[in-house]
């Protein structure tokens, strides 16, 4: 479904990504983990067309994403839930969701998706008329995910959904993401610093370090890898 090949990105001569390749198949849950500054968000921003790459290709269902303006991606069925939530603060919760449903597919599926979003996150129904800027961090994250779902996407990209959240709230968010994957069969690409939780959810994972993929494979392989166990999972029982 999504195919990233040999992607390289530089910020003013500084290499952020080098030769990153990654594949997300339809219906899969794929995770990219790695430490701060590994280039995870850069990878997402490049896929979303906000950051231009110096080399490589990004294809979605056979179409060349790099050849089209950033705003086209939502219309193709890619929902990007950005790092730091980025809700429309001066708009109400309901209006945020309506903005999520801006593409045609979202408008057609509006009633169904709104119902689904409210089932997943009942708080969003309660707060429908409230300005998004007045929500708590956890609620804003729920809203950001809801906004992503509102366009009835084929691929949901989540950038650090647990960032800055209390552990209990982060767990709830992970539960919901897993629920969306299981029950709706939605394809998910997740970038996350909480490696243990993220790897547990995924079908396949990539480990990104200083702009390179250093390890990839299904959950069992990654979780069994010594380096991952020591560096990310905090296990030292080799």
């Amino acid at each position: 479904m999504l195919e990233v090949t040999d992607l390289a990105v530089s910020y003013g001569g500084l290499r952020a990504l080098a030769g990153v390749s990654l594949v997300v198949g339809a219906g899969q849950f794929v995770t990219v983990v790695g430490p701060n500054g590994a280039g995870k968000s850069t990878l997402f921003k490049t896929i979303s067309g906000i950051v231009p790459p110096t080399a490589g290709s990004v294809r979605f269902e056979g179409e060349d994403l790099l050849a089209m303006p950033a705003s086209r991606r939502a219309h193709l069925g890619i929902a990007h839930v950005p790092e730091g939530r980025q809700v429309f603060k001066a708009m109400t919760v309901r209006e945020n969701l309506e903005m999520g449903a801006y593409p045609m597919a979202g408008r057609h599926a509006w009633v169904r998706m709104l119902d689904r979003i409210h089932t997943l996150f009942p708080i969003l129904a309660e707060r429908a008329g409230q300005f998004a800027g007045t929500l708590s961090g956890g609620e804003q994250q729920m809203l950001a995910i809801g906004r992503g779902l509102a366009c009835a996407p084929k691929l949901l990209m989540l950038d650090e959904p647990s960032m800055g959240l209390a552990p209990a709230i982060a767990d709830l968010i992970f539960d919901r993401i897993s629920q969306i994957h299981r029950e709706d069969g939605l394809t998910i690409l997740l970038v996350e610093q909480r490696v243990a939780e993220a790897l547990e959810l995924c079908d396949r994972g990539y480990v990104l370090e200083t702009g390179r993929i250093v390890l990839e494979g299904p959950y069992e392989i990654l979780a069994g890898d010594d380096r991952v166990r020591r560096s990310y999972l905090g296990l030292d029982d080799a």
Partner: protein
Amino acid sequence: MSDPQILVENILNALTAGILIGCIYGLMCVGLGLIFGVMRVVNFAQGDFLMLGMYAAYYLFTGWGLLNFLGPYAGPLLAAMLAGPIVFAGGVLLHRFIISRVSGLRTTASLDEGHFGQLIVTLGVSLILQNGGLIVFGSSPRSVRTPLSSSAWVIETPFYDSLIFLNKARLLSSVVAIAVAIILYVMLERTRLGRSLRAAADNPTAATYAGVDVDRAHRIAFGLGSGITAVAGGLIATYISYSPFAGLDFVIIMYAGVVLGGMGSILGAFWGGLTVGFVQQFSGLILPPQLQNAAIFVVFLLILVLRPQGFFGRSAERA
């Protein structure tokens, strides 16, 4: 005539004139506020869009007389409203070829970087429009004069039998101004296009992720903001006379109004303009006309000191 009668009459007339003029100031502020709110571009040429609106109305009604057949009531008002789409088109082209090079995603993200380019460009556009206007329109003062410009409806009040004079041209113009402002407001609040403009203003990156072409949203906002201010210009044209440099007088009023209302708030911009109209008319009771703009600035500074976010500025937001 007794002294209290004159005093009461002056106050009542300043009040009504303040409302009537304030509504039109409000409309022009809404145009500027829309451009700043969505694009974060400080547009120095806004006063000259107002001037273009005045001349568009002049040529449509008085100059070429295309709308003369509509009579003195509907004719000038329709001419003012038609100035909107004309200047809208000009604004869209201006954004497409010039403004978009110094604005957009790159500059909306940061408040300090990239604004120098905008200042220089819009100042340059302003100078070109003023001096180009001088070449094309000539320097002799124009106005969209009808019998309404100098006639009034008179209302008798029970207070000391004082009379309120409602200038017909001003009254009709302010009614149109309110109507246009309401239409714009409903458009922004209720329609898909309006929502996408607000989303692009609120968070351009997130709007892009949601599928909004932010560059196009900016173009529409710039065109709308120019057009709205031009309508206000066309409305003012029914009761004052002006030259191609008329924009200079009003750009100050517009900025005062927009800052008073809270930068980025459309509703606030209208109230800000209304307030400026009030202050101007009331200061006329005690100050000579040359000092009326000074009074506006005193109030402006007071508000900046006491309530820096403006009347309608948003302060209740989490980071």
